[in-house]
């Protein structure tokens, strides 16, 4: 059995104001404070398109390799719901602003984007119980109402849930890099509905739409679940109806929301309150030219020009904040190899352990640079370096201060170390014998002993040299 997956993605644009009125684009303000006659659907209020929305939509379309249309227009999608004050959503149904784009996955597969259109978000509802039908009361917050969205619709080009997840992650990285959206799925700034069907040579299932997927992990999980469910039903000879299902992250399963027959007829028609949207060729070109380097190009450059390991390059190029940080560290004089290894393995490790997003200011570049330098010049051991870094991350203290406070300076002076080395050798005659019998790998044992005695401060390279000298000298 093979599956076919297509995605419909809604992205909130982080413009200063809403799409069709001048209310602030701030979802998390006190409920119903960023509202006005327009976004609450008062009689006689009219929409006026925020030009920043056009700018952001074109930027996204350009970054996603789309054909951008000089003329597009708005339409009304009509349905009743308490979070939709006008009884219709303004969207672009007949003539979207962009079509025919794509994202290339790491395996080289091109996932085509059918269209991108501008629309407005609805308000947010709070029900006294799980759903509006069970609730005895519901509250509506219209702060979110009218926030600009772009909807991105892919072709059904994905075959595996992992591909859908990768597509979503790549999309998020691109949107963040070009600065049009936070791309945060948990907060609803990026939302994904997935269409999936399953087929083999003989039969094929109807298309099922899965909604309410609110994390990158769940994109994969929900699709895996759904494909398994459909496959099982088909193998049992059951009919798979065309329907919309909702992902329930608590039960890790999907539940039927509505059948095809219950689908709304949205009665789309051209929005008479808004003139057609005309964008000049020059403007489209200007926006295309102003796009920053996108994650995939950046990653390629890190590998080819800077000699960064491919896996590190991918990670560093995802987030604009991270890649800027990396490049700053390199600019400060650290080698790209050191910078990338340290950032990916150590710095990101600290954030990941806390479940936090990377924030450059938590590990100031000059501090990181110092730690790397001290390690490279054996001023402190690698172990000590990690300790210093963790403290910098925690308190923001200067590395020199930490090294001094904790007495972490590495001892590489041979005269200081020789006594300790001698001590360790004397304490372990059996192991010395082993060495003499030809088992040279025991050097590490002696080095370890010295490190223990010096509480990690000894330079292991120097210690190793001394151990060998003394053992060889004795023979």
């Amino acid at each position, binding site marked *: 059995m093979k599956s076919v997956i297509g995605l419909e993605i809604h992205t909130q644009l982080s413009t200063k104001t809403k799409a069709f009125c001048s209310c602030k684009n701030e979802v998390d303000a006190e409920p119903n404070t960023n509202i006005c*006659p327009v976004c*609450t*659907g*008062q*009689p*006689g*209020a*009219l*929409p*006026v*398109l925020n030009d920043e929305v056009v700018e952001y939509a074109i930027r996204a379309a350009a970054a996603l390799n789309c054909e951008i249309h000089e003329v597009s227009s708005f339409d*009304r999608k*009509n349905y*009743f719901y*308490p979070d939709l*004050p*006008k*009884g*219709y959503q303004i969207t672009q149904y007949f003539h979207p602003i962009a079509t025919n784009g794509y994202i290339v996955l790491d395996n080289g597969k091109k996932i085509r984007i059918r269209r991108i259109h501008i629309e407005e978000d609805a308000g947010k509802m709070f029900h006294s119980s799980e759903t*509006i*039908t069970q609730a005895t009361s*519901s509250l*509506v917050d219209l702060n979110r109402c009218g926030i600009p969205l772009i909807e991105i619709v892919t072709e059904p080009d994905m075959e595996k849930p992992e591909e859908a997840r990768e597509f979503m992650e790549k999309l998020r990285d691109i949107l963040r890099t070009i600065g049009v959206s936070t791309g945060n799925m948990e907060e609803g700034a990026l939302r994904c509905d997935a269409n999936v069907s399953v087929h083999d040579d003989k039969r094929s299932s109807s298309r099922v739409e899965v909604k309410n997927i609110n994390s990158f992990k769940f994109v994969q999980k929900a699709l895996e679940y759904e494909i398994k469910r459909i496959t099982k039903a088909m193998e049992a000879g059951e009919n798979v109806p065309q329907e919309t299902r909702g992902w329930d992250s608590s039960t890790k399963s999907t539940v039927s929301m509505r059948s095809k027959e219950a689908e709304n*007829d949205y*009665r*789309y*028609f051209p929005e*008479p*309150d*808004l*003139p057609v949207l005309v964008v000049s060729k020059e403007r489209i070109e200007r926006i295309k030219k102003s796009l920053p380097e996108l994650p995939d190009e950046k990653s390629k450059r890190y590998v080819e020009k800077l000699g960064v390991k491919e896996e590190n390059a991918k990670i560093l190029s995802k987030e604009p904040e991270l890649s800027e940080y990396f490049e700053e560290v390199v600019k400060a004089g650290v080698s790209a190899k050191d910078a990338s290894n340290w950032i990916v393995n150590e710095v990101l490790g600290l954030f990941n352990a806390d479940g936090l997003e990377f924030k450059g200011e938590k590990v100031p570049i000059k501090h990181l640079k110092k730690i790397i330098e001290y390690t490279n010049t054996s001023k402190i051991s690698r172990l000590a370096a990690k300790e210093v870094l963790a403290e910098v991350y925690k308190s923001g203290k200067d590395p020199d201060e930490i090294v001094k406070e904790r007495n972490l300076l590495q001892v590489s002076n041979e005269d200081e170390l020789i006594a300790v080395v001698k001590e360790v050798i004397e304490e372990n005659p059996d192991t010395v014998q082993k060495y003499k019998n030809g088992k040279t790998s025991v050097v590490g044992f002696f080095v370890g002993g010295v490190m223990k005695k010096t509480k990690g401060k000894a330079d292991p390279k120097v210690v190793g040299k001394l151990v060998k000298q003394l053992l060889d000298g004795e023979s």
Partner: protein
Amino acid sequence: MISDMTVEELMESVKKGKMKSDEIVDYFKKRSEELDKKLSAYISKCEIKENEGGLNGIPFAVKDNMQLEGTKTTCASKILENYGSTYTATAVKRLLNEGAVALAKTNMDEFAMGSSTEFSAFFPTKNPWDLGRVPGGSSGGSAAAVAAGMVPFALGSDTGGSIRQPASFCGIVGYKPSYGLVSRYGLAAFASSMDQIGPLAKSVRDAALITEIMAGKDPKDATTVDKKIDLLKGVENSIEGMRMAIPKEFLKDLSPDVKMVFQEAIEKFEKMGTKIEEVSIPSLKYAVSVYYIIAPAEASSNLSRYDGIRYGLRIEEDTIDGIYNQTRNKGFGREVKRRIMLGTFTLSATYYDAYFDKAQKVRTLIKREMDEVLSSHDAILGPTTPNVAFKFGELSSPLDYYLQDIYTIPANLAGLPAMSLPMGFVNNMPIGLQIMTKRFEDAKMMRIARSYEKARGKFPMPKLNGGDER
């Protein structure tokens, strides 16, 4: 008599110190009080003055589908019976900024759907010329108030003739500006692609003066154009040598009485040195059909916001669908429901191509044919209405009502400026002449109207007693 003075005359007498603006306001308040008992032109009264300016102390009335802070905006509907305005419509605001004083919100057909005010959810308005007849609609309250001298001018809205038809029935001037000239911000939408605010007034010059103040780009209405149109300048110029077109489609079903009055008007135009030519605009025969597909379609969407959730009437029910159904069932009148259903049907996926899409195409055709005629002619002339005001209850089927708009609808479909001004009487009831020009040639239209107005001479006011002791 103050009651038959134009806005210009009132301004002049204030300027000359003959009257104080307070006196004018008091006079019209008192006269309104008296006459409204007979005419029921107002839904609510108010006295809102915000500024000093060129229109200082000039009272006016506002159709009750325009937001005006400090008043209710009911749209003559149960569903908005208690809706307090949340802001002030741009057109109204601009008049208030010039010192005009809002005295009332006027009666209308519910949500502007109708041509008699019989479809007001509250009460019908009576025609000042004959209390047994309708004033026309949907801006019937505004027309009756101006005709009766309760206010010197009033605002109406015109989607398919809702300013011009009542102006014709009440013997006053009614002007629908070019689409995009006056902001719709604050006008409860009926059919957004055709709605336009305009004045009902006693003279062509008043209509020009008022509209000049209201017109112009509004950042809150994306369909307004950035055009400065000088309506008064050149309004007195001669129209000699102009070419007037009379579509024979307008004359076909005209009663002999109306035809005669229209013929007299045409003779005046000939005397003024204009050339009169009969033309044919074949697509006009589809105008009513096209209008009654597009307007209800837009209306069905525009009226979705009246759902009982955030404001207005709400009938409590156990389910959300129950609230929607009962609120809208009890809140909307028959005609509104009829049009919502019609529009919902023509927009449905199954019928969109057959109705809405086809109607849009025919609309384009009508626009093109009218533009063609207007590229070789200065204006299109015709009667505003097929007949004079009808009696209450005289029309029965919805279609009879819909045919009232047969001459006025084309201007809305094509976005053209159009004016109705009194041209005579049939059976002692006034009837209007309609003038249409190219879109944004509103100034030319004014000039033609003014020339005719001068040739016609002063048009009388209905004989009504009330407040006019002076």
